[in-house]
């Protein structure tokens, strides 16, 4: 299990996250939602081990992230950041191949096969030879996703579960690719991977999440199943929008229609 416990972080006397408990469990897709500036990305960076909290702890399998060997940690958890720009024009294949760098023991042929499989998973295999810098924003995002998928690609020799942390993985993508990518993340969770995704689209969150965590003002406001989390009162309290919530007849998940709060 990848978790942060009672984590607090302040910068320049401003409290960014306060007393946050979050656990990413193998086999489950946890979606983190909340308004802008609620501390979602910071919580994700604390979980990744990139930031260290002032108080509280961050552990993978009970061992503090700071005590993990860098490459061992990189083999267990992959992180997709909001926007990745590349300084020089590497090919799409090379960018995804960088995701395999913590796995020298796999051998070149196996790693190349994984790179191609990861590109195929995000529908980008035909672009393998293209210069990354010439791709559109959405295509670049999918290549970066392929890179993090390749980093923790399933391996029959591995027994311990992997973790995937996705910071707004579908922002800027068209609907087809939004759903393709979230359902791929869900599929990874079904295979035993622990997945955390930060999302802004509440209906997308409701449709795919196993659990939902709502953040507000640097704190966890609510955590639970989509059915528990999505009530009109909570959505109003967290996001300041009015909403009407029904259960969709096909997905049996809460479906939201929202409108701006009347003055």
């Amino acid at each position: 299990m990848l978790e942060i416990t009672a984590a607090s972080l302040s910068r320049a006397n401003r409290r960014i996250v306060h007393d946050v408990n979050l656990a990413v469990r193998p086999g489950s897709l946890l979606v983190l939602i909340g308004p802008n500036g609620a501390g979602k990305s910071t919580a994700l960076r604390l979980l990744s081990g990139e930031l260290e909290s002032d108080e509280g702890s961050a552990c993978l399998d009970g061992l503090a992230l700071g005590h993990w060997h860098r490459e061992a940690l990189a083999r267990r958890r992959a992180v997709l950041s909001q926007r990745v720009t590349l300084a020089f024009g590497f090919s799409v294949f090379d960018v995804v191949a960088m995701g395999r760098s913590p796995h020298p023991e796999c051998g070149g042929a196996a790693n190349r096969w994984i790179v191609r499989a990861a590109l195929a998973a995000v529908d980008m295999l035909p672009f393998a030879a293209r210069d990354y810098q010439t791709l559109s924003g959405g295509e670049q995002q999918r290549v970066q996703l392929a890179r993090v998928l390749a980093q923790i690609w399933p391996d029959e020799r591995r027994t311990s579960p992997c973790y995937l942390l996705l910071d707004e993985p579908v922002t800027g993508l068209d609907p087809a690719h939004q759903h393709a990518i979230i359902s791929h993340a869900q599929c990874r969770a079904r295979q035993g991977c622990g997945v955390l995704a930060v999302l802004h689209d509440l209906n997308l969150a409701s449709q795919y999440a196993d659990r939902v965590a709502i953040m507000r003002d640097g704190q966890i406001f609510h955590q639970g199943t989509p059915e528990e989390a999505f009530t009109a009162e909570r959505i109003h309290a967290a996001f300041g929008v009015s909403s009407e919530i029904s259960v969709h007849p096909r997905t049996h998940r809460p479906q939201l229609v929202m409108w701006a709060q009347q003055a």
Partner: protein
Amino acid sequence: MTLALARLQTGWQAHVHPLMLGGLAAALLLVMGVALCVGPMPIDGAALLKLLGHKLGFVAAGASPVQDAVMFSIRLPRVLLAAAVGAILGASGSALQGLFRNPLADPALLGVSSGAALGAAVWIVFGTALTALLPWLALGGYARAVAAFAGGVAATFVIFRLSGRQGRTSVATLLLAGIAINALGGAALGLLTYLSSDRELRDLTYWLLGSFGGATWHACWLLLPAAVVLCVVFSRHAGVLNIFMLGENEAHYLGVHVQRLKTVLVLVVALGVGLSVAFTGMISFIGLVTPHLLRLSGGPDHRLVIPGAALLGALLCVGADAIARTLVSPAELPVGILTALIGAPFFMWLLVRQRRLEF
């Protein structure tokens, strides 16, 4: 990690990289041979081979003693020094451009060069007065080199202190700190030129323009091993530098020890550039242009760019020095002027070309 990436290379790169590096090495040897032959006293190819063969013990009889003296006490150390400095500048430029994820980074930008220049300038202007007081300060003629080296390391230290925060180094602040150090160094140099006497001013200007004219075997024995060590260190980090192109956070997520990478590379650059500025002054544009040329012809992979830029930098320095020696013979141009004169317009052409390709 580097090995894993090497095996991941797509087919054509694996064949192109050794070919390009081999071609560059052959071209470097050729240019060095030509540079050894040209000068106020021409030595033809046969005589060159005879001289080298005699020195190595393959040929019984050498050439004339005059040719022998010109070759082994003037030209060979000069060509070797130019090659070593060129390799240091080329490899440092490509490592810094990778580290800063910025194609405009270069040792001069970081402030290392101007720190070293300031150190040497202080010695040129105040050295005579200081040695009159404390004769041991002359350090057997190496005082100026030591001052330049100390200036380079001091500048790097200050830049690191300015940009380090909570055990991390911000690359953007590092660049801005470099600009500040350059401004400070420029002002201090200006003040020193204002204070200097006529003779000191001439020394100062000539040295600032860059020249391999002061080449000695002592300088070679310092700079050749430095160049080799620097190229080996950078080449070993080439695979990690490729990953670094994704950004600091991404490199961190992939298991790269980002802080150690930055510290090692910047310190090695400071050592190499401090040494080369100490012996040859400011030689501009080699560090900036060579990585660009490599990237344009063979792609951005640092496993090609770093060793390639070292070879190409050596080639350009040796070639430029040969031209600087012969163009206005028997006098000579400062080679720094020549590299800037050729390098700057060439760099502009590169920028124009790149823009045309992009749009």
